[in-house]
Structures are given as C-alpha cells and as structure tokens.
C-alpha cells in the first residue's frame, strides 16, 4: 500500500490494519467451515441425515460475538475519525481549494498567491512539512473530490458547501493528487501535485510568489451548510 | 394482531425511533423527514389492516386447516387476458417523452393512457356483472 505521508494517514492505516485482521479472521473461519461441510458431508448413502432445525446456543453465541466485534470496530473507528478531523487552531497556512471543470485553484490566505491549473499543466500545492495546513474546499461547478493517495485521504468539493480539514505532511516530497468524483469529460485528467517542503523553503516560495493584490474572488454562492 | 400487522407496526416504530435519534444527532432535515414520513406510511398500512378486522380470520392464518377442507370454495376472481396493460405502458412511455420532445407527444400519450384506463374499468365492470 502507498503512503502514510501524513499524521492522519497513520491513524487511517492503523484502523485499516485492525479491520483487515478482523476480516481475515472471520472470513478464514467461515471459509474453513464451508470447505469442511462440502468435503466431510458429501452424500454417501440414501439415509436421511439428522433433521435438526435450530440450535439456540450456537445462534445466540454467534449473534453476541458478532455484536461485540462490531462494537469494538466502531469504537476504534470513532476515535480515529475524531483525531483525523481535528482542526488546529493555529495552522501554518490556510488554503482555499476550489475544484472546477477540469482542474484546481489554490488560494493562499492572508494575501498569499493563487495557483490555478489546467489539465495540461496540473497545479502544485506547496505546503510546509510538519506543520498543520488548513484546507477549505469547495467547487465552482459540479461535485469533485480532492484525493491524494499517499495521504490515504480525500474530501469532496461540492458547490455551495465549504468543507474544512487539516493536513500535516510528515515527509517532504511530491505527492500525486487526482479528482475522485466523476465530474464530466476530463475527470481523469484533473490531477494536481502536493509538494511538501521544509518550512524555510515554503517561506521562500511564498515570498517569490506573493502577489500585490488580494487573492481572486471565491466561487459564488459559497456558504456553510 | 396477525403477523403482517405486527411487521408493519414494528417497522413503523423502528422508523420513528431511528428518525428521532437521527434528528437529534444531526439536525439534518432531508433524512429526518424521510425517516419520519416512512414511519407514518407504515403506520397507515398497519392501521388499514387493523380496520379490516375480517382479514384476521383468513383460513390461511389458522394452523390446522387443510386445503382439502376448502374444496369447491372459490379462492377469488383473477383477470384474464387484457390488451390494456401494454397500451397503458406505451401511453406512459410516449407521454413522458413528451416532456422532452414536445407537447404533441404528451397529448398522444395521454390519449393512450385514457383509452387504457377506460378499457380497464369497463372490463372490470363487465366481469363483476357476470
């Protein structure tokens, strides 16, 4: 599996590992029972086998076990989700991400630069490593989704909705991003890159790209749900 | 209360409880409304069955009755061949595409639907008078 390049990805991967173990365990037991039946209980004579209809203990035990497993999985998942969705009160950067047919616009808050891409020239989202970056995401037209496989994370970009999440990238590097909600003809070409650099390099980049005026106007009709 | 009434009532109660929980957890109106109207719809169906109390004495709901006990009783009247269902379906198809391709289609479709509905009611009346 790729990734684990953010703090949140660590949480996601841990949840995945537990769920995978549970899945293999349960499926493994069930598979063994099925194969046991089809091998051991093949018809060998015309005698009628014992015609039992139910077994209260077995049925109850299986139900209770299943409920306990599911409750445990929920508790794990709930805690991880709370951590993944936590927003830092003092992020190192705030970026308004707008999906549109068929590329992305990144507007850095506080008089920062605006980066707009095209399918031929995908945009690069430059972020400082090790610091929380606050993303506000929306769409200018139809539904899109901001997906970075290496972060094991995506969030939809929906017109009329401003959604919020934090990214804390832990390893410097270039990470491929793609659109993960079908949005029309060039859905497959709506890529971007996240470039995680040292905080010093990030400040350098900001200085080089800082525009004179405020960032471009946000998508119309934007509101919180 | 027979099994069917029990299922409908139980489902209505479930929808009500889950709908209430969902509302207080989320304050999201679309889902809450759909769950609560679901409860109302199921309760309506349960109430209808309860009011038709004679249904509770269906032979089929008695454990020890045999089919041979009901020999020569008419089970019911079942409609035979009819051209009106395909005509009605065709009228719907043509009429709805009138929303796309022009009102003249909707008129044509409405004519077909009307003819079919009239035909169905006529056949039904003729059957009941036999």
């Amino acid at each position, binding site marked *: 599996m790729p990734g684990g390049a953010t703090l949140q990805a660590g949480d996601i991967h841990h949840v995945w590992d537990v769920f995978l173990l549970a899945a293999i365990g349960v499926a493994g037991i069930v598979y063994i029972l099925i194969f046991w039946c089809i091998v051991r209980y093949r018809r060998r004579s015309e005698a009628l086998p014992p015609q039992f209809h139910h077994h209260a203990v077995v049925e109850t035990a299986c139900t209770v076990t299943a409920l306990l497993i599911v409750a445990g999985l929920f508790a794990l998942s709930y805690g991880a989700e709370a951590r993944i969705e936590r927003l830092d009160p003092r992020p190192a950067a705030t970026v308004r991400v707008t999906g549109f047919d068929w590329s992305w616009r990144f507007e850095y808050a506080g008089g920062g630069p605006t980066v707009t891409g095209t399918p031929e020239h995908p945009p690069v989202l430059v972020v400082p490593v090790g610091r929380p970056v606050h993303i506000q995401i929306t769409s200018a037209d139809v539904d899109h989704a901001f997906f970075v496989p290496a972060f094991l994370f995506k969030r939809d970009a929906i017109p009329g909705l401003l959604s919020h999440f934090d990214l804390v990238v832990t390893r410097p590097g270039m990470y491929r991003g793609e659109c993960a909600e079908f949005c029309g003809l060039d859905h497959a070409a709506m890529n971007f890159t996240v470039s995680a650099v040292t905080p010093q390099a990030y400040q350098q980049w900001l200085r080089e790209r800082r525009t004179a005026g405020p960032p471009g106007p946000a998508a119309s009709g934007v509101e919180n749900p | 209360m027979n099994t069917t009434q029990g299922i409908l009532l139980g489902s209505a109660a479930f929808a009500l409880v889950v709908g209430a929980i969902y509302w207080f957890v989320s304050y999201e109106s679309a*889902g809450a409304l759909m769950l609560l109207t679901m409860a109302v719809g199921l309760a309506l169906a349960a109430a209808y069955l309860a009011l038709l109390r004679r249904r509770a004495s269906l032979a089929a709901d008695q454990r020890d009755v045999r*089919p041979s006990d009901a020999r*020569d009783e*008419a089970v019911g009247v079942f409609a035979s061949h009819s051209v009106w269902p395909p005509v009605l379906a065709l009228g719907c198809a043509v009429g709805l595409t009138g929303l796309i391709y022009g009102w003249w289609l909707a008129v044509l479709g409405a004519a077909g639907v009307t003819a079919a509905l009239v035909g169905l009611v006529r056949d039904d009346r003729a059957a009941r008078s036999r």
Partner: protein
Amino acid sequence: MSTAAALPVPGPRVGLLGWLTTTNHKHIGILYMTTTLGFFALAGIMALLIRADLTVPNHPIVGRQTYAELFTLHGTGMIFLVIAPFGLGLANYILPLQIGAPDMAYPRLNALSYWLFLLGGLVVMSGLLTRDGAAAAGWVAYAPLSTTGSPGAGMDLWIVGVLMVSASSIMTAINLIATTVLYRAPGMIMWRIPVFCWDMVVTSLIILMAFPPLAATLAMLLIDRRLGGHAFDPSQGGSAVVYQHLFWFFGHPEVYVMVLPYFGMITEIIPVFSRKPVFGYTAFVLTTLAIAGLSMAVWAHHMFTTGAVVNPFFSAMSLLIAVPTGIKYVNWIGTMWRGAIVFPTAMLFAVGFLLNFLIGGVTGVMIASPPIDFWAEDTYFIVAHMHYVLGGGSLFALFAAVYYWFPKITGVMLRERWGRLQFWLVFVGFNATFWPMHLLGLWGMQRRVVTYPDLPGWHAMNLIASLGSAVLGLGVLVFLWNLWVSLRDRVPAGPDPWGGYTLEWATTSPPPEFNFETLPPIHSERPVFDLRRSRNAP
C-alpha cells in the same frame, strides 16, 4: 381443492398476441426473466468494452464521452434492468406456486408492471440513438452534473425510463405483498411460507419505502432541467448535498432489493441439496426484517467524504447491519452441517455465492469505517466491493436459481456438463476480474476514469482484470449455449427432479393455468417433503 375462477374474455391465447395480452403470473415471470437476460447481454457487452478500454495505461480505445455513457448504462442496466427485476420476475413465477395460490392478487397490474419495465428500459437505452448520446452522469446522476452539466436529451430519457421502471417495481411490490397476505392456501400460515417468499415480502416492503423518494428526486431533476427549477442549484439557493441525501435514501435500500431475493433463492437450494431443513428458519426471518429496517438508516455512508453528514451515526448503523447479514452464514452453514450434500450445477453456484459474497461482506464492513472510507471511497476498492456482493453474490445466486427452477418452468432439464463448465469459467473469470481491483483501489486508482497513468502495478492488475472479464464473458456464452441446447434436446424433468420441499414441486412441470389440481396438507415449511415422507413411511 378450492377453485379459482377466470373471467372468460374472448381473445387469442397463443402466439405473439397471446404473450402481449397475458395476465398470467407464469407468463409474466417468463417475460421478465427473458427480458432481463437481454438487458444483461447488453450491459455485459458494455462491461467488456470498459475492460478493453482499461487494459493498457494511457491507451483508451473509446472517447471520453462514449466511456462515460458506457459506465452509466452498464451500471443503470445491471441495477435497474437485470439484478432487481430478475428477482421480481422469478418471484412472479414462483411465489404464488410456493404459497399455493392460483395467480397473483392483481393480474392486470402485474402485466402493467412488466410492460412499464420493458418500455422504461428501452427508453433509458434509447439515449444511445440521440444526437448527443445517452446519459453520461453515472448511475447515480449526481446534481449539478446531471442538471446543468448534462444538457442532452439522453439524460432526460434516462430520467423518464428510470421513473417508469420505478413505477413498475412499486406495483410489483404491492402485488407480491397483497398476494402473500390474501392468497395463501389453508394451513399456509406466515411462519410456514418458504424463506424465498419471506425474502420477497420484505424486499417488497423495502421497495415501497425506498422507491417513492427516488421517484420524487427524479421528478425534481426533470423540473430543474426542463421547467426552470433550482432544487439542486446552489447558486440559486438549492443544494447539491440534499440531492445526495435524497438519492442515497433510495440508493442504499436498493442494494438490498438486489440482494434479499437472492438470499431467498440460495436458502431454497442449499437445504434441498443437503437433505436438511433450513437451519434457523425463525432467525432467518428475523434477520431479514432487521436488515430491511437498518437498510433505511445507513444511506449516508455513501457520503462520508462530503464532510456534510454525521459520520458516526451512519458508521454505527452500517456496522450494525453486518450482524444480521453475518448470521445468515450461520443459517447456511448450519443447514449444510451433518447433511448429505450433492453438487448439481445449482449447488455449485450456491456454494460459489457463499464464498464470493463473504468477501464483499467483509470489505463492506471495512468501508463502514469513515477513516477507511476516506481512503477507499470512489476508488476501485469500492468497485471491487460492489461487484463481489452483486456479481459474486447475486449473479451467482441468479445462475443457481436458473439451474434449479428451469426444469419447473420449462419441463426440461439443463445439461449438467455445460453447467459445470459454465460454473468454473464464471467462478475463475469473476474472481480474476474483480479481486485485483481491491489492490488497484488501495493503490489510488479512482473510479470512472477513461484511462490511467502507468504507475507501478496498475497495468498488471488491469490486465489481469481484463483477461478475467474475457473468461467471465466466455462463461456467459456457455450459459446461453446451455439454454439453447437444453431447449432443443428436451430431456424431460417431471414434477420433482430434485426432491424438493416446497409446493411448486407438487404440481406438473410446467404447472397448469391455475397451478394446482390438488394441494397436499400443509403442516410445516416443507409440505412436499412431509408428503413424500408420509408416503414412504411403512
């Protein structure tokens, strides 16, 4: 034996006109099932084109617009025109027989259901013949893509066609429930009806709860598109998120409409070929009801990545629904346990169902966790999950049901040798196609893309999937061949070739017009088994 009266209406009873005007549940069931076979072939060819397009990275073989139409019509076709209606069509044929009834409660309504389904499906597909092409917004038709983003008539035809199919399903649901409530034979109390009938009654209940919101949503789409509405246009005060709520409130229960009938079919087949009664009949009925109720409360697990819903509520409900579904495996394994099992083709497909559906089930539990879903949503992991439950599950059960009930419907047996060949081709082909998609999804390949970059492993997995789809397609061809050859050679089946348990095996193959000359006494959920035992007893 109680009698049924038919209205003697003069008119043709054979030939094309006879089929056009029939109201008999058996003929309508046959019409349904053969029509779904036709749509299956169409949607299946689209799937093969999709797989061919994705075989080599950066090398699509169709244009972007065509590709979008292909995956839209493949999904719409398989969901609305194959898997769901086959269950309803088989129920049309089998349910009245299994409860000892002469026909469905409302025969003309039944016929109307079929013709609305056929014409609705044709209207959806007719988009291919329009200038701007068929609908291309996916089977989910999210707004605003399906409103302002889809100006052509193909999208309108899709909406109208699906509306017709929805009406058809609602009518069949009404008919199935009314038939079961009103026309059970004496002694056939609800707790003795076959499990397949229970599953169809509960499926019908779900249809009644889920399809009206779909119809309303489709009407709103039409109003937005053609009559100046703004329900889903955020720039005018509408909401794209509300579209998703409305659609998925229908969309999630719909998947249970596509699975519960098939659970029922499997639960008819496994007991007969294990020579055991169903293990845990009561539990099976209760878990089916639990699934139906919970299925209405999980819809927004399709919206975890929007950031606009209360994820934990839906996560809890979705994890909870795994429990009654899992208990069914206790029922099925318990039925086989200490049984005397034989493996005609129907049983091969039933076991295949058990093995495949389980994989879909456990991946479903995984994506019920929002953190995992943040990773997997809208990737090929989801494609793998859905095809394992609907393909590896429902489709395998569909084949099992065909091999099991074909003798009753036609009076002839399907050939076992072709059946075995079909099973192995389909089993290997299916798993080769969809197992690699789990990996592709976790590696980041998103859904609904006409092509993809040459990243490590992506070409290899896509190549395996495409080759697998060819094997799967070959298996389907063998199935069609078997149907043809068996109907040509006509090996007679007799009334009860399998040693069945339920009432359909107490009459001829095929049954007469009003189904039964006489009915055996009904004291348990296995009246024909009881009858056979009492005849053989000294």
